[in-house]
């Protein structure tokens, strides 16, 4: 099992130095996790480090493909509020 970085990653480098397995590497269009190296931080930390510092909701998936930080969990912005504001802005 391994974590995965997907679209949404803003290449902020926060996760890279934290990975105890050096599984995270810079790539285009965004950082990636080497699935062969990722241990999900088991044995090293209680919480997966990349998922614990990533500021972007939805950018890191756990071993089951589930977003570790679902919409609203990091920013506190209710997803429906975000969606309605974005719709409003796009109409302008």
């Amino acid at each position, binding site marked *: 099992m391994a974590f995965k970085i997907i679209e*949404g990653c803003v*290449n902020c480098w926060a996760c890279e130095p934290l990975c105890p397995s050096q599984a995270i590497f810079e790539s285009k269009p965004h950082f990636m996790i080497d699935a062969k190296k990722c241990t999900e931080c088991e044995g090293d930390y209680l*919480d997966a480090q990349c998922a614990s510092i990533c500021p972007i909701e939805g950018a890191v998936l756990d071993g089951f493909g589930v977003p570790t930080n679902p919409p609203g969990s990091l920013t506190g*912005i209710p997803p429906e509020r975000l969606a309605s504001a974005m719709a409003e*802005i796009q109409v302008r």
Partner: protein
Amino acid sequence: MHVAVAPACNIQCHYCNRKYDCANESRPGVVSELLTPDQAVRKVTAVAANIPQMTVLGIAGPGDPLANRERTLSTFRELTEKAPDIKLCVSTNGLTLPDVVDELCEHNIDHVTITVNCVDPEVGAKIYSWIFWKNRRIKGVKGAKILIEQQQKGLEMLVERGVLVKVNSVMIPGVNDEHLKEVSRIVKAKGAFLHNVMPLIAEAEHGTFYGLMGQRGPTHDELRALQGECDARPFHRPAQGGSLLFRRRYLRGCGDGAAEDHPRPGGLRGGALREDWVRALGHAGGCGHCAQWGAPDGTHRGGRGGCLS
């Protein structure tokens, strides 16, 4: 001038959005502007060779410089060696400041800017969503409490070591506006030489918590009134003496470099001395750690950026 070598951040402020989708976005500090420490040193030495006025180099972002400890310190280390005449300054949210103070002091650090928006964790919980601390993400009051303790400890350590500390605060009406008077009193009592209060700028377009939740920024009059109460006059400048003129000149050195294009509405003349200080150090109203670099017309503000020191 500033160099964007520090992309990572270890906290989430409600006035900042790490994800910026605007296609027209051209703020400094976006990923395309990111420099490695080597590139930054080359850029700085090249600019300094051509522009003698470039005397101060700041690292302010686009994330938190001290959350990018190696990138920031290696830039300082190399500049201290290769360009000993250039003074260095750094801006931080303060979370890891106590751990870095001694190493910072090994370089030509001129001043450190700490963004302090509160000294009360209950207030802090309304400003910060989370912090990353000891390998865990910590939310709410608990996270804010740690952040506040670290900021205050860092401030004390720097003052003890004779490093100038400037404090930036973002004025958020209904959240910390009244509270900032206490912040001001405390940070000055501890020896901060300047407390700079800046307005929150929050628009839905910025995608920030405050922008999307309808938090307003202060009016011009509200801001001026609070700035008056928090009094931006420098308190401690023991090593440098203290004429107003000197202070003004001194402060104008930072961030005024021709290599950067800060908006500078007004100008630097006449009796508005205190505004000069605030502008010179605060760059016409930044917002702590998110940018508000702002074009004068208000475009391209509220994302991240790096003009804060």
